[in-house]
């Protein structure tokens, strides 16, 4: 078993089988950003929605590197990230990480979407800043959650094998 560095408190988050809440935020791709609803993205097929720490945090880097190595970015689901970083940070991250194949990174500076999903995570000792806890949601076009993985410790990395099984089962 992976050693847990800091246990996170249990949270009543959105789970597999439930309906993923819809939201609209600026969605950043490698060329521009614009307001986009999750439901609009779902019209083009299933979505892997990734809640992650700020862009330059090392867990974020590791997650996108892992998705790239496992070819999940060009898999059966559109990959969409969300965190509190600004559109400019997102644009740079897409370039720096070489993840142009991603559908986009949502910018949610107030962390409201994470709160709605039950995934808000305080940053110790940083007044006024919170970010999402690391979480993966595989969402069907009708917004049903087909798979979820939510961190129970900080830091903790996703179960990519389980994710790949869920992607295959789509």
């Amino acid at each position: 078993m992976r050693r847990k560095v800091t246990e996170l408190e249990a949270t009543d988050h959105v789970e597999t089988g439930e309906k993923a809440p819809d939201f609209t935020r600026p969605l950043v791709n490698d060329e521009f950003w614009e307001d986009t609803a999750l439901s609009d993205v779902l019209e083009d097929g299933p979505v892997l929605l990734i809640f992650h720490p700020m862009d330059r945090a090392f867990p974020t880097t590791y997650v996108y590197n892992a998705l790239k190595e496992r070819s999940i970015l060009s898999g059966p689901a559109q990959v969409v990230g969300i965190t509190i970083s600004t559109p400019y940070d997102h644009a740079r991250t897409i370039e720096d990480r070489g993840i142009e194949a991603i559908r986009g990174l949502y910018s949610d500076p107030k962390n409201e979407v994470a709160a709605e999903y039950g995934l808000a995570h305080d940053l110790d000792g940083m007044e006024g800043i919170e970010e999402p806890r690391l979480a993966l949601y595989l969402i069907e076009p009708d917004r049903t959650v087909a798979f979820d993985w939510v961190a129970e410790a900080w830091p903790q990395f996703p179960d990519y094998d389980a994710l790949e099984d869920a992607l295959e089962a789509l």
Partner: protein
Amino acid sequence: MAEQTLDEPASVDADLTLYRLQGCPFCERVVRTLEDLDVSYHSRFVEAKHSERNVVQRLSGNREVPVIVDHNTGVTMGESPRIVKYLYKTYRNRGGD
């Protein structure tokens, strides 16, 4: 994975799509005109770095902003003085009420 056509705005629930930069006075002039004329628009913010505005180049032939794509008329146009003139010509008398 579904192919996304980046050159076509995802949302056509507005009269037009405006490609703009944050803090660009030429873009703000177009915004003001759109608001004066009560024309609905959808904003796409592009990179400040000129060399990375390929989406704009594909639309208009160069990397200058603002650029509008009018979903009612099919017109794609750059250069703010030209856009403002076009908007007045096209939308000044719309509705009329």
